[in-house]
């Protein structure tokens, strides 16, 4: 009897040891890669401390960041503060951000892009070689965009709508990361200066800034309505002209038009409504699209979930944008019709990042397909002399995602025409004409765009927004889409639109070899 019980006990103990061994395998094999990426892992700190670290280049091979090992401590030098948010920093004391963080293991040679090599290196106790990273960003455009912001708090992001390659991504104010990325003993003082500066310079506004979009969100409303067949470019709302002056009563709440100045209300179809930026028109459109379908279209453009810049396995993270209140992991259903109607013209609970807004513009430019954005073009062998440019030996390339369709090609075409009118139309050019590349010396190219003036309450200057792309005419291949925000910059036509137009014009000039 006892013998039987002991035998059973032996089985249970064996089971318990097996479970322990299983758990061991869980942490040592399954969870190991995740643990090895955490910033406070001594392995990460040690590798960052002493190992030669790969360099970072712009798309043209211009050096942006490189390291030298002095007295056994790796010191990082950043050459262009305009890149501080994208490139990030790799500090021995304050962790890493941006590309420096996401590509940390490859830059330091903690791991190899090829998992088989990783295994081999593990067995042979070798280190992988450090690698260099090349961005998709062109330093010339990045510096131009940063200069356009001129230190005002805000952000500019530009993307190639066809490939998803980020062309510029500047956030302002910025900071110099070199001072606290070197010797950890002397890093505290410069860090304190940066962290204590007004305007939160460490924040990457393109990925982590949350803003009310105002009228630029009407592009989303129009896209949803055109694709769903709720409106055509000719659709009008009979009550709308009267409501422009009297207000539009939704569930007992009166929605009012913004100041139309000397403009006489009339029966406006889509093109006119977009030029005038009629809140009343888009409130009608939003209500006709319906609450569920509005959120569904927002999701198709990337709203309601965190965005990523890169592939599934390796990407810079960006915050989610919302069209309604946040619910766990996404957009909550609209609480009532007033919230939906207000969201349709970009107010109420709508909360967006500049990156999400440039994707919205890019999708319209790209025939309705939201491109897969990426900011790192390739990984290369470490160049011994980084100043002389990157190595020719490309180890791995990124990007090349086909994107995903948000709206039909036909709907995108109709919307594109309306957005061209919004910049070039008789009324439109009053509001958004400053976003036209023609004003900055580029002839023969139409610009599509939309301004936004995001109200933030009384006695606070509204955010100034512009989204757009060029060339905008149907049939032309769009080569750049932009989103610009100037915090508290007032009307979209004043601060943001000129920056957007100038950045797009600069890019077209650079493409033409000028």
């Amino acid at each position, binding site marked *: *009897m*006892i*013998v*039987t*019980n*002991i*035998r059973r*006990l*032996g089985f249970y*103990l*064996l089971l*318990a*040891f097996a*479970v*322990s*061994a299983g*758990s*061991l*395998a*869980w*942490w*040592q*094999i399954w*969870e*190991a890669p*995740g*643990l*090895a990426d*955490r910033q*406070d*892992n*001594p*392995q990460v*700190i*040690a590798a960052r401390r002493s190992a030669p670290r790969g360099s970072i280049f712009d798309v043209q091979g211009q050096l942006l960041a490189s390291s030298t090992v002095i007295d056994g401590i790796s010191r990082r030098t950043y050459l262009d503060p305009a890149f501080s948010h994208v490139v990030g920093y790799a500090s021995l004391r304050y962790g890493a951000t941006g590309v420096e963080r996401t590509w940390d293991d490859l830059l330091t040679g903690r791991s190899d892009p090829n998992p088989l090599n990783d295994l081999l290196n*593990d*067995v042979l*106790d070798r280190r992988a070689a450090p690698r260099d990273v090349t961005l998709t960003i062109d330093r010339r455009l990045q510096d131009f965009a940063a200069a356009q912001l001129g230190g005002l708090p805000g952000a500019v992001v530009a993307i190639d709508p066809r490939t998803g390659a980020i062309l510029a991504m500047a956030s302002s104010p910025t900071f110099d990361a070199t001072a606290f990325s070197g010797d950890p003993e002397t890093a505290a003082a410069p860090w304190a200066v940066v962290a204590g500066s007004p305007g939160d310079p460490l924040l990457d506004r393109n990925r982590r800034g949350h803003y009310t979009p105002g009228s630029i969100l009407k592009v989303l409303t129009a896209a949803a309505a055109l694709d769903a067949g709720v409106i055509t470019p000719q659709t009008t709302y009979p009550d709308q002209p009267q409501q422009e002056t009297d207000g539009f009563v939704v569930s007992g709440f009166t929605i009012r038009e913004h100041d139309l100045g000397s403009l006489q209300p009339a029966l406006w179809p889509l093109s006119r409504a977009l030029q005038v930026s009629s809140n009343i028109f888009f409130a009608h459109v939003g209500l006709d699209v319906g609450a569920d379908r509005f959120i569904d279209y927002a999701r198709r453009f990337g709203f309601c979930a965190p965005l990523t810049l890169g592939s599934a396995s390796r990407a810079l993270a960006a915050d989610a944008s919302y069209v309604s209140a946040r619910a766990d992991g996404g957009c909550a259903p609209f609480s009532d019709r007033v919230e939906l109607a207000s969201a349709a013209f970009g107010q109420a609970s709508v909360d967006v990042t500049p990156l999400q807004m440039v994707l919205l513009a890019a999708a319209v430019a790209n025939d309705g397909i939201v491109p897969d954005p990426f900011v790192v073009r390739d990984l290369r062998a470490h160049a011994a002399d980084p100043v002389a440019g990157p190595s020719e030996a490309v180890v791995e390339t990124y990007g090349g995602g086909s994107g995903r369709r948000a709206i039909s090609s036909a709907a995108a075409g109709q919307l594109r025409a309306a957005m061209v009118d919004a910049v070039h139309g008789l009324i439109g050019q009053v509001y958004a004409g400053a976003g036209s590349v023609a004003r900055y010396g580029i002839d023969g190219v139409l610009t599509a765009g939309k301004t936004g003036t995001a109200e933030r309450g009384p006695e606070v200057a509204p955010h100034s927004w512009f989204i757009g792309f060029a060339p905008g005419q149907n049939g032309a291949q769009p080569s750049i889409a932009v989103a610009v925000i100037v915090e508290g910059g007032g009307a979209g036509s004043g601060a943001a639109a000129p920056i957007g137009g100038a950045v797009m014009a600069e890019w077209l000039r650079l493409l033409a070899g000028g």
Partner: protein
Amino acid sequence: MRAVRRPVELQMLLPLALLVPLGFAVTHIAETGTLDPGPMGLAIGFVAVMFGGHLALRLAGNRGDQLLLPAAAAIGAVGFVMLNRLPQSQLGMDLFGVEMGMATTQLLWFAVGITAMVAVAVLFRDDGILRHYKYTWALGGGLLLLLTFLFGREVNGARLWLYLGPIGFQPGEAIKIVLVVFIAGYLAEKRALLAGATTRVGPIRIPPLPYLLPMLAIFVMVMLVVVISRDLGTALLFLGIFLTMLFVATGRRSYVLMGILLFVGGAFVAYQLFGHVRVRVDNWIDPFVDPSGTGYQTVQALYAFGRGGLFGEGLGQGLPSISGRLPIPALPTDFIFAGIAEELGLLGATALLGLALVLVFRGLRTAMLARDDFSSMLAVGLTVSLGLQTLIIVAGNLKLVPLTGITFPFVSYGGSSLLASFVIVGLLLAVSHRTALDAVAEGRGP
């Protein structure tokens, strides 16, 4: 007391004579980066102690199981090589003005432990002293407990240490053995009654309380004191030993289930009442909430496991210290398994668990072959105390259960633990020897 040959034991110990010095050399080479094997005194000392134990058992004529000592020695060897390669000044002992590093101190305790093992194996060849005086043993244990409670020194919020001059020890280790002896004696005597009779309370069958009462009373008293001195690991271990022995004696899983339910209930109450329990449990649920504060050691241990991977960083190549400080301060004691898994990888750490399992299974075999209920119960209790302790600390390192501060038998740094673990091996050898002698007497054995 006629000398015997113990050939299997000798063969199994032989590899250690090579592996321990090799381990020392490898870690020294890894540390210095030169092809210098480094000092070998401690390694040779370790091997000498183990072979000394083997010789003493031969001379004492012990016919007990020949795999117990080699298994314990092999497990101990892994820990010893690991301890030797850590910063030596962190722990250690100042014995009469002589400062000893961690590995030196541990070797001293290995010698003491092996001596105790042989002494116990010889002294308790006749089990009468244990069996008949079980209440006396229990009383002795109780006294020890009381002494600790009154005069113990508090370390890390738990009052576990008694000091005799410069030498501190943890009476909990001795009480563990005494408790096993007492429960074994009690259960062996009352087994038939316990297994048969039940008391009914409505539809629920509960153990026959009158028979259990004396044992329960003593056990509850022990648990109370242990819990009050905040020694959660020991409390869990004692409960586990008790329930397992009850299960083996009666074959009733329901008793174990009841015990576990009581424990869960008690744990819940403790979580509500005591801050230090709450910290441990919260930490267990998600150590990453406060990775640089309360969750620090747990998180660092997980990093160490992760760094190890399948093959490990290599002996001596782990990251045990950052600029002279251990990332896991309790690495030599509570977290030595994480350190071993980092350097030897999944393969090496699993092999270590395998060695522990060999020891457990030889102990259970000893229990199964024993000729009387008391010897069986004793061997089961002792074996389970080693096995459960290993499981509790390993599972704690792996975040399977909340971490509790108990040692990895034979591996962790610590004299009391080593001494108690070798005494347990000595008792198992005594039981096993008796079985073999009986077999010889019946003309079946060698």
